[in-house]
């Protein structure tokens, strides 16, 4: 259960400043729930950004996305344990490895099947998901793991009205920064131009001297760098084990659909909506946390089937 680390500690505030009126306490609890939910949404946006990027460029959904996040978390964990490095430095080492892995996966496997028929890439990534999960189970066992972040794990900032965990805040900040940088890459660099051109029309892009397969491989590699960032926070904030990948894929997918296909800032909003729904659900009944997130997704799907911020050109 991912967000246990970020659940509100509303009880601790009762004693401060004497006896508060009941309605004020209730309002503060819900404000706290809201803030924690938005911060949790940052993590989900990180899960989702890579998925959104790859889908936007090559209309491909990687069903192994969640398992790749978990794999990256193990990679960081191993680096921390073997080299005794700080988790952030370990993620810096893991990122190029994940980039290479994503690049190779696209170049040697997925490029062979990307195209009009959606069945082959779906089934291949589904096979990869099952293979990855069980491979990790064999290598790392089913035990829960955690990337130790020392004092950072319990650090928090008291803003008076609410107390914010430093780690959730850092997660959210990283998500905002990652999406900002991705948008800059997309709209102001040559490779971003090539991404958009290839997404529009791969054949004409190749007439411009662009190799669409190379662009696809770059995009998947880039997505895996974001996956590494997501994995860093996933692993520091809560326990993880080889089986939790599919659920992360589903959260990521929900954030992408709520935000609107192809909109990275929309993905952040989508992540926040799932995060808020989950913390609100958990506040009412801890068993409803995950369910509430899914129901929020279904509600958005009814009201706005194309998401909150659909891209004009699709």
């Amino acid at each position: 259960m991912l967000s246990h680390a970020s659940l509100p500690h509303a009880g601790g505030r009762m004693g401060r400043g004497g006896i508060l009126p009941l309605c004020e306490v209730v309002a503060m609890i819900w404000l706290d729930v809201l803030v924690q939910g938005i911060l949790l949404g940052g993590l989900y946006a990180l899960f989702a950004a890579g998925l959104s990027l790859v889908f936007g460029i090559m209309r491909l959904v990687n069903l192994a996305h969640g398992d790749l996040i978990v794999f990256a978390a193990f990679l960081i964990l191993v680096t921390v344990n073997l080299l005794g490095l700080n988790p952030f430095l370990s993620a810096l080492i893991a990122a190029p490895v994940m980039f290479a892995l994503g690049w190779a996966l696209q170049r040697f496997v997925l490029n062979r099947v990307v195209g009009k028929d959606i069945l082959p890439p779906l089934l291949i990534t589904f096979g990869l998901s099952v293979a990855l999960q069980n491979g990790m189970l064999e290598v790392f066992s089913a035990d829960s793991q955690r990337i130790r972040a020392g004092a950072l794990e319990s650090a928090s900032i008291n803003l008076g009205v609410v107390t914010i965990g430093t780690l959730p805040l850092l997660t959210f900040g990283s998500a905002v920064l990652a999406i900002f940088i991705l948008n800059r890459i997309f709209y102001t660099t040559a490779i971003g131009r090539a991404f958009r051109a290839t997404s529009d029309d791969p054949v004409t892009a190749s007439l411009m001297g662009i190799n669409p397969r190379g662009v696809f491989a770059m995009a998947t590699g880039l997505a895996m760098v974001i996956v590494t960032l997501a994995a860093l926070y996933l692993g520091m904030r809560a326990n993880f084990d080889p089986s939790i990948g599919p659920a992360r894929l589903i959260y990521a997918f929900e954030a992408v659909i709520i935000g609107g296909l192809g909109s990275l800032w929309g993905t952040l909003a989508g992540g926040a909506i799932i995060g808020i729904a989950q913390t609100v659900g958990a506040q009412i009944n801890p068993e409803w946390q995950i369910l509430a997130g899914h129901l929020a997704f279904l509600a958005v799907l009814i009201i706005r089937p194309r998401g909150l911020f659909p891209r004009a050109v699709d």
Partner: protein
Amino acid sequence: MTPILETRGLTAAYGQFKALFGIDLAVSPGECVAIIGANGAGKTTLMRSITGVLRNDPGMVLHRGEPIGDLPADQVMQRGIAMVPEGRKLFPSLSVEENLLIGGQVRRGGGRWSLDTIYQLFPILKDRRHSPGTALSGGQQQMVAIGRALMSNPELLLCDEVSLGLAPVVIRDIYAALPAIREAGAAVVIVEQDIARALSVADRVYCLMEGRVTLHAPAAEISREAIHAAYFGEPT
């Protein structure tokens, strides 16, 4: 002199359907060659084969004597063969300027063409440079497509049906750019249905019918009767 581009017995097929039956043609440096023919004669298939969108046997297409028939489109383009595709095919997600820049992503050094010189050639594009490419009129879009191909400073420019669907006055504006393009050193291949237009600008003409070259002559020496016969088949 080695031709820039040569095809030798070029054949092409879509599955069971054969579209080209042994095309031989050659383009020399600096030359302007027109390819004419009715709809379905195989002109667009020929362009797709040359640019590498359709792959062939290596020896069927030669660039400066080297076989390139099996190269993918991006590598053909990197050798200096740029294409203005039929229907213009601007990238809708890119602005006018970005469409031009992406054409220049693979640049061959020392050429004349840059953003500035393209804007001199087609001044209207400078005013519209931040608009989405697809927001422009058909003629302006065609200018972007030509500019985009020129941005790589190609030694051979292939233009597929640039006048299709445009008003005569707009076509005249576009063809007015041709002398400047040739002056900069590029050889040009023009695929046209407008025979008069093709004859007026080209050095040599190839006429295609049903996937075969039915006529090949210097533009100045060609007669209306010969074209009619090559275009529609021999009179019976």
